[in-house]
């Protein structure tokens, strides 16, 4: 992504990408429309607290709004298909892309508060996961 020079530019870009009007952003943040407009054009400085409100309303990365640098993506993980997923993929005749999507879905969990441990998915778990997401897969 090309760096965008100012905080105001970045706010405007994200707001417009989400088709959110200044009025709506004003309602969600409690910041006046005039102030937001001035901030976007660089005529007003945005305090950290107001930037937080804007970031929350836009579901934006605060780091990106403040510094223009999006969060670094994680290092790519080695693609290792677990044996259970491999078997499920064969039995369901899944494409490689769909198998990869299942693995990515499973890998997207980074934290879980529980009194119970996690267990590795069984073949049936992978099949169930596929049934849940197949309608969303292209």
């Amino acid at each position, binding site marked *: *992504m090309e760096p965008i020079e100012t905080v105001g530019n*970045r706010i405007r*870009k*994200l707001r417009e*990408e989400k088709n959110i009007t200044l009025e709506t952003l004003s309602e969600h943040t409690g910041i006046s429309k005039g102030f937001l407009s001035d901030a976007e054009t660089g005529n007003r400085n945005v*305090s*950290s*607290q107001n930037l*937080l409100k804007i*970031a*929350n309303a836009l*579901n*934006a*990365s*605060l*780091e*990106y*709004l403040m510094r223009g640098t*999006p*969060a670094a993506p*994680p*290092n790519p*993980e080695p693609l290792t298909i677990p044996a259970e997923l491999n078997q499920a993929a064969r039995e369901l005749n899944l494409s490689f892309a769909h198998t990869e*999507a*299942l693995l*990515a*879905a*499973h*890998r*997207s*969990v*980074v*934290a*879980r*508060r*529980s*009194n*119970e*441990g*996690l*267990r*590795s998915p069984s073949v049936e778990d992978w099949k169930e*996961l596929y049934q*849940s*997401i197949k309608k*969303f*897969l292209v």
Partner: protein
Amino acid sequence: MDSLRSPKIWEIASALRLPAGDSPADAVLKYCEDRIDKVLEDFPDCANPAELLDTMAAMLETRFEEIRSDEELLALQERYCRAGEFGFAALHKDLDGEAFGVTYRRLAAAPGERAFVSVIDCRGNKALRSYFTKWHELGHLLILTDQQRLSFRRTHSPGTRKDPEESLVDAIAGQAGFLPRFFRPEIQPLVSFEEVERVRARLFPEASFQASANAYT
């Protein structure tokens, strides 16, 4: 706590490039404390625990989604799956039983959007633990490294003993969620149930009485 002396905690400290010394858990807790202090420097208007929670979530690139019923869980699952976040397809399983919260790395986040979503289970009695659960999820993100991300799935195996990382993250949550700078001015010399409840209601309305009492003592 024995689990805080396990090799897993040494691995976490090492992944964070901390000089672990004799107590890697203390090193990790200090690292988290320093990160929070830095955020408080950047956000000097942050005046209470709720605002700190909000700010830390934004700094750590996550958004909290609370569910209060099975219907809300299904609606959230559908919404995120439609947006390409296929990890949510297993949300109902990730939150079954004794699970209180789960954090997903987004698979389809647009540039500039937050990288994570933390789903907090507020169904039934789990709501009583929502404050601590939020800090627990942030605790994981505070110490998240690529190495951690990989080891999270590898080592959280079933068993009766609590995973050392979970114990560490509970300690981080207890420290960050009941930060002395907010808590200390409220503390009265004579502790009573009423006093703990007054502080809980004033500073940590989402926290359980138990967690507040633990912080008090």
